[in-house]
């Protein structure tokens, strides 16, 4: 099942500053909600989001329970050369998802 939505322009000119938008499905359970029995619903969040371009880290976010469910994160990067973006989400309970997108820069 598709878990992530990535939006990266397919093409750009060298030097353009482009926006990358990412959306990942995840409950982001904060760990502060209670069941009627009084039990706390345990924390289950994405703790880290990283983007690499052609192997080099270009953006990283540390996430806390205050980030809303289905985290939507956007950032900018300068188009320097053609290549591949790789996105990684890591979280509680061994959560680990990746996605990728290519760009052609002329």
């Amino acid at each position, binding site marked *: *099942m*598709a878990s992530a939505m990535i939006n990266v322009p397919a093409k750009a000119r060298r030097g353009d500053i482009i926006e990358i*938008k990412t959306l990942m499905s995840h409950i982001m359970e904060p760990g502060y909600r209670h069941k009627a029995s009084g039990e706390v619903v345990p924390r289950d969040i994405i703790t880290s989001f990283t983007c690499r371009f052609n192997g080099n880290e270009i953006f990283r976010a540390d996430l806390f329970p205050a980030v809303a*469910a289905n985290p939507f994160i956007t950032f900018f990067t300068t188009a320097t050369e053609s290549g591949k973006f790789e996105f990684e989400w890591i979280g509680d309970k061994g959560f680990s998802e990746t996605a990728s997108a290519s760009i052609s820069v002329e």
Partner: protein
Amino acid sequence: MRFSGAIAAALLTASIVGAAEIPQTDRRSGYSFMAPDTRVMQDDDTANPGMLWVLDGEALWKRKAGAAEKACADCHGDARVGMMGVAARYPAFDRATGRPVDLEQRINSCRTSQQQATPLPFESRELLALTAFVARQSQGVPIETGADPQLAPFIAKGRELYTQRQGQLNLACANCHDDNWDKRLAGAAITQAHPTGYPLYRLEWQSLGSLQRRLRACITGIRAQAYDYGAPELVELELYLMSRAKGMAMEAPGVRP
């Protein structure tokens, strides 16, 4: 509780139930009551969380299921063509049962009769994904639910449910949604209750959910006993609400507070 105080105020000013159906020219989608930031969330496909379910649904559409090893695509082909306009005329009359069925029930009846698979539970991720994907294929299409004359008695039943007072607060849907729309209740705008965006991503739920989920929440909110998922009353209410919204454009998956 602050909430019941506001309701009491609404009750005092409410006109006779059923006397104030919204004139055609005054009809507005729930979209128009939202803050600009929330509207942007719906408009931008790359930012609309409901699209995550649409993507899942697209994958499920092509996946073989059940003892018959059939995918939706095997019979219905490309959903962009086969499902165009379908959601805009649901709930629809089902000849087999002689009753209206909503989109979720139609998907499940296809699963059991055509795919020989088990029905998907209400509000399960898979059922929401398929419903969202199908509803998405009607984006921008004007609603035409209720055109079938066989639906008339069920629409009447739905209207009765919509206008009857119920629960501890003795409120009818019409009290808020016909008589007091655009006023505010506990800080939130009262909409006209047109289901143009369903299934939709509700910020309160932090998830996509169905119209039946919303109806149950509303009915619980006025301190009445909510009908079970799949209950005939909920389908009749859905049918009435969709026929009441006839001509308005579908906007699924919507985003709402």
